[in-house]
């Protein structure tokens, strides 16, 4: 692109009062080499925008440096098709957060213009990625339970095609085994209508159903997934655009339960799953002799909420036991039904079912540690009743039902780390050491569900307890694999009512994914981004950092260790760009060279001027908005800082620090998101990776004979804007103690 740069300086909102605009214009003209430099008292107003449009039309301006407010506001006003626009944040991050009329404030603004010019100089308009092969908009649905069936139905109703793969011979999943269901409005038991859903999906011409089938292999990425499905010895290949992963759950293995719960000691001690099977197939009977049970006890939290067994709550067992208790009462009103529970968990309207069970005469015994004693057909439950303070002893029970929990199918299988270790056992020690990266690996279990041909492992990485989600709160359907969305009980334990909605929600994400990918756009969290990373392969040293570090497993590898990027799997965070020691990975509008040029464009005053300079590499999702809000609140902070927003701090390449320090910048501050178990990074591991990379910065500092205090990493949340000024001031103070960078003037 033949660039014609124009700089527009807004003097409104206090910018004109804080800064010497004439001087700024000179910098734009002489140093930024802007063909046009204009100022306006209200650039975002009608007049201002008309002026910009006229210049685009009449003067051929195609690169606009807009020195005004933050890019987070007036985004629609300053959007010009076919032009490159860079917003210089003179308002929130200069005029509103620095002393007006001060020499340092002026220098900051001037630097921001230089930095913008450097950025535009290295920026090209992104061209959307279009794979050579045709994009498929079909959706693969893994699992034919309620969530999967619903996803198939909803995909079809939205006008898309679905391929549904179910391992069992019949569709319906766990619900097929269920007699009655508990769902809205929770006033009583409802008939199980899963068969109607099975019929609807089976007859749907938009849905290709494979039962008794498994996925042997999944290769490619969004838009271009190729899925190999094996059924009855035959193999079929489908091309799909996105995947709804609704492979469901398995009941917790009752043989693993504490012996005090009596499982296996009497045929009359069963699980809630066995209860359902009985209820569905001819009614609930006493297993030892087939008699009608008159005394039935339910024991909640069998193995659940137990750090040694299943540490989490399976969410549905309280409601399920209530349902089963009511079922007994409805078929045999004379029966004595007891529920031993720690806490009754019936959120929302499900509380009504709890009330219904009480009305039906179910007896509730709140206790912590019930014990089952069983021998032959005789079963006894003993517990210390929390409410009565007495021991409750129920003898001659006909049936004891253990409320066992849900385990996602992704929680089974060998740890992929072990598989990798085995694969590498044959390699020489030296090679192993070379590859030994300190990057934490995702927990992937070889659960034989998707069989992804991904370099980082064949299944979805688990977050906790084997659930494959990636952002527990804000983005519930997302996984760490692009275009694969989790739904139903594989995502979190849930009841049938939630599973219906979940199937629809994940189907929505899958449809959105194929629509975005077909336009060459990124999906969450940089939804709509048209840029993608390009690899300059001639300089690749096969170090595998990019393939190891990508939080989304987007990059495969050939036998020699060369990266094989899969652009439709990419989330455009730039972690690979930050990881690459050879700096061969670039986006059209975001690159190592660009950030390097931005850093180099900062004017570093001579040592005797006593004006240190600090480069702040700030996560644009959280730290940068926090800086804006500090400005909005007119908090002032250190004037030596020069903020460079990063797509994710994980895109920080160590060369940035070397560039800055070797140029005489006194310190580099990295502002990233909280990491660890409760990470806040949109890209899962970006800030963590940046911090790990930083452990290597010592080499850079040693080489330059510089103090380690010159580089600091701080985690900040978007709401930490009250703390940011102090973080910046403290770092500046530390640097004053360290003294000026001796490289100034070199």
């Amino acid at each position: 692109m033949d660039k014609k740069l124009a700089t527009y300086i807004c003097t409104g909102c206090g910018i004109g009062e804080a800064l010497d605009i004439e001087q700024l214009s000179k910098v734009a003209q002489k140093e930024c080499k802007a063909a046009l430099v204009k100022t306006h008292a209200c650039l975002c107003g009608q007049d201002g925008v008309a002026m910009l449009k006229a210049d685009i039309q009449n003067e051929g301006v195609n690169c606009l440096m807009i020195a005004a407010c933050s890019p987070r506001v007036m985004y629609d006003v300053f959007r010009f098709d076919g032009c490159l626009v860079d917003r210089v944040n003179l308002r929130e991050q200069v005029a509103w957060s620095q002393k007006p009329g001060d020499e340092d404030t002026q220098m900051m603004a001037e630097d921001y213009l230089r930095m913008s010019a450097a950025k535009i100089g290295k920026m090209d308009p992104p061209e959307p990625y279009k794979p050579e092969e045709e994009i498929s908009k079909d959706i693969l649905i893994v699992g034919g339970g309620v969530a999967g069936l619903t996803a198939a139905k909803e995909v079809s109703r939205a006008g898309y095609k679905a391929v549904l793969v179910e391992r069992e011979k019949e569709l319906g999943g766990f619900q097929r085994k269920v007699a009655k269901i508990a769902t809205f409005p929770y006033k009583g038991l409802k008939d199980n209508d899963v068969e109607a859903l099975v019929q609807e999906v089976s007859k749907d011409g938009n849905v290709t159903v494979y039962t008794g089938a498994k996925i042997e292999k999944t290769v490619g990425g969004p838009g271009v997934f190729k899925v190999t499905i094996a059924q009855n010895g035959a193999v079929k290949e489908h091309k799909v655009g996105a995947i709804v992963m609704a492979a469901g759950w398995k009941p917790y293995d009752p043989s693993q339960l504490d012996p005090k719960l009596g499982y296996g000691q009497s045929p009359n001690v069963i699980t809630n799953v066995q209860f359902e099977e009985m209820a569905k197939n001819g009614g609930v009977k006493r297993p030892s002799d087939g008699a009608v049970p008159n005394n039935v006890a339910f024991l909640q939290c069998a193995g659940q909420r137990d750090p040694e067994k299943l540490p989490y709550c399976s969410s549905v067992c309280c409601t399920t036991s209530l349902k089963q208790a009511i079922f007994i009462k409805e078929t045999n009103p004379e029966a004595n039904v007891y529920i031993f529970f720690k806490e009754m968990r019936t959120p929302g309207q499900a509380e009504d079912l709890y009330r219904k069970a009480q009305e039906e005469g179910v007896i509730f015994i709140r206790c912590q540690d019930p014990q089952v004693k069983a021998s032959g057909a005789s079963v006894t439950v003993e517990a210390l009743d929390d409410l009565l303070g007495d021991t409750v002893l129920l003898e001659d029970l006909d049936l004891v039902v253990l409320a066992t929990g849900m385990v996602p199918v992704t929680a089974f299988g060998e740890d992929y780390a072990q598989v990798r270790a085995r694969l590498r056992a044959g390699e020489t020690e030296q090679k192993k050491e070379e590859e030994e990266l300190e990057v934490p690996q995702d927990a992937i279990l070889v659960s034989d569900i998707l069989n992804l041909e991904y370099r980082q492992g064949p299944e979805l990485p688990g977050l906790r307890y084997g659930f494959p989600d990636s952002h527990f709160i804000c983005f519930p359907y997302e996984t760490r694999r692009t275009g694969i969305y989790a739904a139903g009980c594989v995502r979190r334990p849930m009841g049938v009512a939630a599973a219906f909605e979940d199937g629809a929600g994940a189907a929505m994400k899958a449809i959105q994914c194929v629509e975005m990918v077909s336009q060459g756009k990124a999906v969450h969290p940089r939804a709509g981004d048209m840029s993608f990373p390009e690899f300059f392969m001639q300089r690749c040293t096969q170090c595998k950092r990019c393939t190891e570090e990508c939080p989304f497993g987007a990059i495969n590898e050939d036998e020699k260790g060369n990266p094989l990027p899969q652009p439709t799997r990419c989330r455009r965070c730039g972690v690979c760009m930050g990881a690459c020691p050879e700096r061969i990975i670039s986006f059209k509008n975001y690159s190592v060279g660009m950030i390097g040029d931005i850093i180099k464009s900062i004017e570093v005053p001579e040592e005797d001027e006593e004006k240190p300079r600090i480069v702040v590499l700030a996560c644009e999702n959280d730290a940068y908005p926090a800086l804006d809000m500090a400005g909005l609140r007119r908090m002032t902070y250190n004037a030596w800082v020069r903020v460079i927003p990063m797509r994710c701090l994980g895109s920080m390449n160590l060369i940035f620090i070397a560039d800055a320090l070797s140029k005489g910048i006194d310190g580099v501050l990295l502002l990233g998101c909280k990491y660890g178990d409760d990470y806040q990074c949109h890209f899962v591991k970006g800030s963590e990776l940046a911090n790990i990379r930083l452990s290597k910065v010592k080499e850079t500092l040693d080489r330059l004979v510089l103090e380690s205090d010159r580089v600091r990493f701080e985690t900040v949340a978007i709401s930490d804007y009250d703390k940011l000024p102090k973080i910046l001031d403290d770092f500046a103070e530390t640097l004053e103690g360290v003294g000026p960078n001796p490289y100034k003037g070199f």
Partner: protein
Amino acid sequence: MANTVTQSIMVVGGGMSGLSAAVEAAEAGYEVFLVEKNPYLGGRVAQLHQYFPKLCPPYCGLEINFRRIKDNPRVKVFTMAEVTAIRGVEGDFDVTVKISPRYVNEKCTGCGKCAEACTLEIQNPFNYNMDTVKAAYLPHDMAFPMRYVLDPSLVKSAEAQKVKEACPYDAIELDMAEKTLELKVGSIVWATGWKPYDVKKLENYGAGAFANVITNVQMERLAAWNGPTQGKILRPSDGQAPKTVAFVQCAGSRDQNHLPFCSGICCLASLKQATYVREQIPDATIYFFYIDVRATDRLEDFVNRVKADDKLVFFKGKVAKITEDGASKNLVCRVENTMTEELHEIPVDLVVLATGMQPNTSETPLPTPVPYDEYGFVASMDAMPGIYAAGTTRTPCNVAESVADGTAAALKAIQSVVRR
């Protein structure tokens, strides 16, 4: 399939469910009108200090959703707007939207000159009226749209002209009137959310008259730096840090006389707020009075984490009555320990009532007939052909569930307008 006249979708309510429904549908390629009653998007979530269980700031999730809207011209946002009429059928609805005057137009840059010129103050709705704000105000630090609002009381006051003249950008229109828009849409997602149960109805807890009895939503504002106390948890009566804090669960929920259902989120919300107290007041004694701790799925981990706090007393029992000492404004919680059957009178400095979620549809139903349950929740997501209910309009739910539900509703709304 409906005889679709238009492919536009309307989402009513800009809280977590509605916001999710709008951006998800828009990113799949559909035009969306997002209608929000407040002057800003984000709903109740914007007023929270942190989310459980990660203790992360809601602004973070809102920022990314706002960014999705900014990057997607298909979403048209109407704030201070309410739907007053819906006519027509799936694929062809005519919706009347009433827009209240903001008195500030789109020329507003957010510079704040109007607020500087304004001396009149009003109760601050963002902080549940716990402090005041200038009558020319930005609703909160991350308000989206980033645009000021003039309170009608200011417009009527003698100061109005002065404030108008203070604006360098001609953004203030004192004669702005209520407007009515007619929009044609193919389907509608109704996500008008919830309100905290009215404490005035809780007579045994002081009916809102005790200064140091606050609600869980107010506690969120007290803990937030952009709240009325710059994030300091202080007693409203004297501005002192409380030494004992009581969280009273099921204040109106699971109660046949109030909200018979369980609001689902309050246990976790209170335990989260206990961490706010602990962080600020290391030696405070905290009571958590409860019937059952309802922490489903992995949220159990959070309960275990909070349980490690040895000055936090998990007290099983529903508080029967709260009394106030007139002079000190200290409080006494009368509660029976259901484990020991002993009656306790526990003096505390601050009470936080875990008031439940009342669906807004229970007081402001849809302007077209749809089935509700007895509590005023819309009875199912498929409220009627082409109209879908999402989030707390349907059932009490937390943030993750609201997002999930809003996303599901987006697909249903798309199905109603898709042309085959």
